[in-house]
């Protein structure tokens, strides 16, 4: 239940979620939740054009089935908004971060500030481990000084959870809030909002500065509803920044057509090159994993890494493979501590925390840990790297888990596959190209 008017600044909320008193507040605009446009019902919140056969209810009403997970929009509902007033307390020294950007990072950061000054749309294509978050700081500082509202969103909840404390620490005098589907904390009107892209469906013309991190990832990529959510959440006068290490085809097309400007950063913050991948062909690997066995070469490698106390991530394509590979390793009686993780794993966050605190030797994981997570000094092994699940972007991201800190900027990325699939080859090529660009810069 929404009780205070500030909770409606720049938002679009179901009328029935407002307290009785607030529903009659003079500053509130109410739009019908569904509108008939050219003879067809369109959801006001997510802009989906609805199929009458699916949207109709026996009572004669219609509802939106596209954004229903955020609460049902139907023909009896209204959508309440209060214009964004940018009512923030002035902060003298907003940035508490005392770190430094490298010359290349600073150049990209300056480019981003200019983008928002000019209310433009921009893509920052920076390699994994380039220090994307830190490059946002000058923009955030500038925006806070000008009383602007800042939204940072990512399709992945893990990315948001990891990002939020870093933003909070860097701007500790500034109000900030983290929103995602699983969070219990109530909504608050804040100058900085970190949230999942789904949560943006509840905002309307709110943000002057909008940043979408890891933009190429599921479920954002190829989901028109979430793209609508982003464009609705930005003020008409606002600017938009996309961040990724692996832009997909639609982003590159937007760059080519001039819809987006683009900045590159092909080198990591510590100045070392990306670790290149080693492709190891094992023709029978798929069949062996299916029988819960591992090729001898893989098992030897695992034993050697564990013995050397070299921690690592072991990627597999599917949840079924997690169990199979786990069974194969436990049969081998290597003395090691490990866990398996997948997206719906109820203990996922705890297991990742255990890996981070070094109480595990390795994690066997699906692509859920492909991005947004940092374990210092690890190696990475990918089994069945030629599986359909591993797109070239996923493999580049996985390889990007290695060598992220300056103490161990190198490390191994081992791709085990039965054939050199186009994704495996594309991953190898992209990393080499980025390193080529990096060499030219330095």
């Amino acid at each position, binding site marked *: 239940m929404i009780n205070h008017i500030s909770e409606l600044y720049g938002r679009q909320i179901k009328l029935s979620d407002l307290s009785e008193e607030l529903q009659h507040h003079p500053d509130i605009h109410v739009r019908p939740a569904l509108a008939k446009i050219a003879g067809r019902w369109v959801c006001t919140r997510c802009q989906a054009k609805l199929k009458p056969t*699916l949207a109709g*209810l*026996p*009572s004669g*009403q219609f*509802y939106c*089935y596209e954004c*229903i*997970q955020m*609460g*049902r929009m*139907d023909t*009896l509902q209204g959508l309440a908004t209060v214009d964004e007033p940018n009512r923030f307390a002035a902060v003298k020294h907003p940035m508490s971060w005392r770190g430094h950007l490298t010359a290349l990072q600073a150049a990209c950061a300056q480019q981003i500030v200019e983008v928002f000054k000019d209310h433009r749309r921009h893509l920052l294509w920076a390699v994994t481990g380039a220090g994307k978050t830190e490059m946002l700081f000058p923009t955030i500082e500038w925006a806070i000084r000008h009383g602007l509202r800042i939204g940072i969103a990512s399709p992945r909840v893990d990315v948001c959870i990891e990002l939020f404390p870093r933003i909070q620490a860097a701007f500790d005098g500034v109000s900030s809030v983290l929103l995602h589907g699983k969070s219990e904390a109530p909504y608050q009107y804040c100058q900085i909002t970190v949230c999942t892209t789904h949560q943006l469906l509840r905002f309307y013309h709110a943000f002057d500065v909008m940043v979408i991190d890891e933009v190429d990832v599921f479920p954002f990529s190829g989901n028109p509803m979430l793209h609508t959510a982003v464009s609705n959440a930005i003020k008409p006068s606002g600017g938009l920044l996309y961040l990724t290490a692996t832009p997909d085809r639609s982003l590159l097309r937007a760059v080519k057509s001039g819809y987006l400007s683009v900045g590159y950063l092909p080198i990591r913050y510590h100045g070392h090159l990306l670790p290149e991948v080693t492709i190891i062909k094992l023709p029978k690997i798929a069949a062996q994993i299916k029988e819960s066995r591992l090729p001898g070469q893989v098992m030897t490698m695992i034993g050697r890494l564990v013995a050397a106390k070299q921690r690592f991530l072991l990627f597999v394509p599917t949840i079924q493979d997690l169990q199979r590979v786990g069974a194969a390793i436990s049969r081998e009686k290597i003395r090691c501590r490990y866990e398996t993780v997948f997206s719906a794993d109820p203990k996922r966050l705890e297991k990742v925390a255990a890996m981070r605190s070094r109480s595990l030797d390795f994690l066997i994981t699906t692509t859920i840990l492909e991005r947004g997570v940092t374990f210092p000094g690890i190696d990475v092994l990918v089994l069945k790297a030629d599986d359909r699940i591993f797109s070239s972007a996923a493999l580049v991201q996985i390889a990007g888990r290695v060598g992220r800190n300056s103490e161990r900027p190198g490390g191994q990325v081992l791709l085990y596959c039965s054939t050199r699939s186009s994704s495996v080859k594309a991953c190898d090529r992209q990393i080499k190209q980025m390193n080529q660009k990096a060499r030219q810069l330095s």
Partner: protein
Amino acid sequence: MNCLLCNGQVDQGLTLSQILSFQALTTDSVCSACRRQFSPLNRVKTCRLCGRKLLAAMPDPCLDCEKWRRGFPYPFASRSLYEYNDAMREFMKRYKFMGDYRLRAVFSPILKAELRTTHRLIVPIPVHESTMATRGFNQVTGLLESLKLCECLATREQQKTGRQSAKNRLTRVLAEQPFKLKPDTQAQITAKPVVLVDDVYTTGTTIRHAAGLLMAAGAASVVGLTLAR
């Protein structure tokens, strides 16, 4: 076509028996991984009166049904198709409480197949008018769409019934009849066998209220069928 529950691809693998059956190919509205989360009750031992899954040590009929037999004046047995597990709870939350009417397609083919051969009059449990207005549908009739139904029941406003302390729990529960017969529908059910359909059997009170009302109105016999137990 994408899975109604997880939005993933529905695997359309063709089996040899499908090819040889010469029947129209029907694709499930739900992927096999989501479908497996539901636990059907047709292959396990269940209570013959309430349809609950019986563990080894439990008598048939179960103890709850023994109590009902003593307190409920009519013979009544009910059957359920699925266990009310986490997946079913989540389904009900999305279908009924969030109001995603599309999700009826997850179970309606199964429930309808179950009732296709019945000679009984199919009576759905009604929802309250205010629920109907906000939700926009009755979750039970949604699952039975296109079947011929006898919608003779309606909800009635709750009223205080006498001195509560004077009655024991069961008679008290049964005195609070939440349903009424719609006007001019008694003739439709007189001397007819009836199957009452509801979405979930929890304590069995709701469906017995309806069953008692129909028996009192002259139905020949009443059995129950629910999606989940």
